[in-house]
């Protein structure tokens, strides 16, 4: 394991000129990310508001249409994402314990789980397209006996789609972190990017935890 003095000099490589010390840099980064996550919640908030309103207007539709969604795969994806949140947390823990190799391993697993999530998503979506469940005016599915079925699926595609975009962005961040961790940038002195990306990833996870019951588990 790296001795203290060398890790200190490594971390000072990433100390930016305008901060007084590493603590200030770390605190600022963390706070910035928290505030950004608030904006993300509001961003999704608009869609959640739309969901609430339409569900209040067309409760039967939401029950009916929900049956078209595959609860099994949705459930698998939920487990996959929760698992990835765990591995990201473990990556941070490894950094704190200065276990440099474990940082990379945990990040790699996180990345892989995110990819699994997206693959499952891909199959879910393509299956629906196949039977004519398209968003909005392209909707041509005959199987649901409700005139406004398109609205439910518009919301479904928008919300899971926006969430999917966030997963893809998260994958990009994970890949970047993985690359940096392989170059040995992170240790117990400096792991700010791992920590704040972790925060972002938890949010992505939490949003899915709301989306899953709201769309898949309506009975």
């Amino acid at each position: 394991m790296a001795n203290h003095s060398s890790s200190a000099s490594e971390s000072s490589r990433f100390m930016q000129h305008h901060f007084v010390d590493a603590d200030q840099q770390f605190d600022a980064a963390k706070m910035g990310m928290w505030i950004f996550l608030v904006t993300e919640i509001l961003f999704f908030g608009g869609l959640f508001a739309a969901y609430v309103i339409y569900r209040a207007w067309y409760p039967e539709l939401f029950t009916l249409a929900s049956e078209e969604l595959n609860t099994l795969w949705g459930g698998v994806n939920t487990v996959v994402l929760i698992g990835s949140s765990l591995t990201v947390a473990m990556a941070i823990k490894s950094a704190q314990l200065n276990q440099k190799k474990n940082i990379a391993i945990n990040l790699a697993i996180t990345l892989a789980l995110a990819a699994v999530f997206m693959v499952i998503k891909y199959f879910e979506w393509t299956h629906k397209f196949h039977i004519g469940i398209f968003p909005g005016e392209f909707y041509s599915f005959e199987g649901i006996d409700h005139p406004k079925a398109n609205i439910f699926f518009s919301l479904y595609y928008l919300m899971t789609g926006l969430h999917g975009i966030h997963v893809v962005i998260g994958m990009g961040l994970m890949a970047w972190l993985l690359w940096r961790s392989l170059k040995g940038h992170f240790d117990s002195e400096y792991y700010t990017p791992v920590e704040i990306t972790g925060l972002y990833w938890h949010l992505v996870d939490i949003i899915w935890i709301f989306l899953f019951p709201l769309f898949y588990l309506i009975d």
Partner: protein
Amino acid sequence: MDTAESSSNLKKIQVQRFKPDDNPDNHYLNEETGLWSWLTTVDHKKIGIMYLASITFFFFVGGLMALLVRTELWTPAKTFIEANTYNQLFTLHGAVMIFLFLVPSVPAALGNFILPLQLGAKDVAFPRLNLLSYYLYLAGSFIAIYAIFSGGIDTGWTFYTPYSSSTGGAVTTMTFGVFVIGFSSILTGVNFITTIHKMRAPGLSWDKLPLFCWGLYATSVIQILATPVLAITLALVAMERILGIGIFDPALGGDPVLYQHFFWFYSHPAVYIMIVPGFGVVSEIISTFSKKHIFGYWAIALSSLAIAFIGFLVWGHHMFVSGQATLASMVFSFLTFLVGIPTGIKMFNWTATLYKGSIKLASPLLYIFGFFFLFLVGGLTGIVLGSIALDVHLHDTYYVVAHFHFVMVGGMVMAFLAGLHYWWPKITGKMYNETMAKIACGIIFVGFNVTFLPQFVMGSQGMPRRYFNYIEQFQSFHQVSTIGSYILGLGFLMVFYYLVKSIYRGEQATSNPWGSRALEWQISTLPPLHNFHHTPVIVNGPYDYHKPMEEFQLGLAESGNGHGHDADLEVTKEGEDLSAE
């Protein structure tokens, strides 16, 4: 570092007098030069200047469109352009002025430059993010301009559905542009809040925070809470056009009033994004030019936050005639009246600060007086519009147009100009021609009133907004208004002329031409690359005018003493003890 050691350390440091080194050979503009250094700079001062240049450009673009609109209204029927062009012109005028000029004007341009200086910081918390915000702003602007050439838009700046989801033209492109600019705005907000929390110099406790910073803080809160909702709303409009998702389109089972709720949930708070930073500018200037401690510091600081907060509860006053529930209208109306309270508190505190001050009627203060008068009219007419019964009559008439121009142009543009004149010597190191500045201020004030006062009259008599043709009864009002708009334009051109001229011909500015106590004036002009050679320790607040200037001092601490953030209470106390010695 234990407390005893650190305090003795500070004590030693405190003894040094703060002396700005007026060495003009060594400052932020000449340490790195060349176009590339500008385009890739992470220096908040240069980024502020890039914003300044960009918003000035868009201000004149938007202004030109306004003049075309006003010229077209010279006669009741077609004067020189087609109705369709007219619709596009007023839409673009509104969108350009709001999204490309007003929203970024004070926060992104002046705020970027001044905020770290006032905090005693070397830069904002995330300098690279700051540069990214600027490029997002620029990218969004180009997309918006591209939209003009690829079909234009005629929906009005509000993009109301279902019209916006069905009309031709480049609405999708335009909303995408605004979406991108929105992200720029969000990121600036994130950056500023973090900067204010984490980057304050030792000794700069919350009760010494300059009111401009408080204003920017409240603005940033609104930016991060409201802008994402606008972003998603506009994304939904784009989806509506591309996929026909039917959320807002009644033909597909959607609800257009929902759009209005979403839109105004952003856009009412957004009008406060456009004025609250202006309030911050006013406080700084009032204190400096009356040489007095600001009256009711906390009242002014907290009323900005109160306005930000109440601003989120009143959006429904734009929808009194949209078919929303009567009860909702009544609640929104009541809440709207509440906004008047914190605003009034501010006005009274400013007046009280001026009272018995040794007032120096320099041009920044003159612009502030213009602000007072015009903003007062704008705010009071807002109360009128907030009354349901009156609004049913006045909604979508020229009365509304006059109202929001009084607050947005009379309030914010005046405050922006005041701030620009006030900080100009610090930004450019040059003094402008004071006589010209005063004359221009007068011309703008007169031109503004000639333009917009007749619109109150027209509006209350029933002239609807956004109409291409009108009945002859209104012609003389329209003509007066059009003449006024040319006078106003002339005033702005003059400002542009003497400010730009001062860069080449202006007198060299001293480091503190107004004799202010605020921190940004205690460093050399032009400021050095990283603002402070040493991290300052703040002993006196920014409005401490009770001591003569010679006694007023800022301590100097070696940078990197480990106390540079979050203004630990400890350090504050030490600073105060030391000043009492």
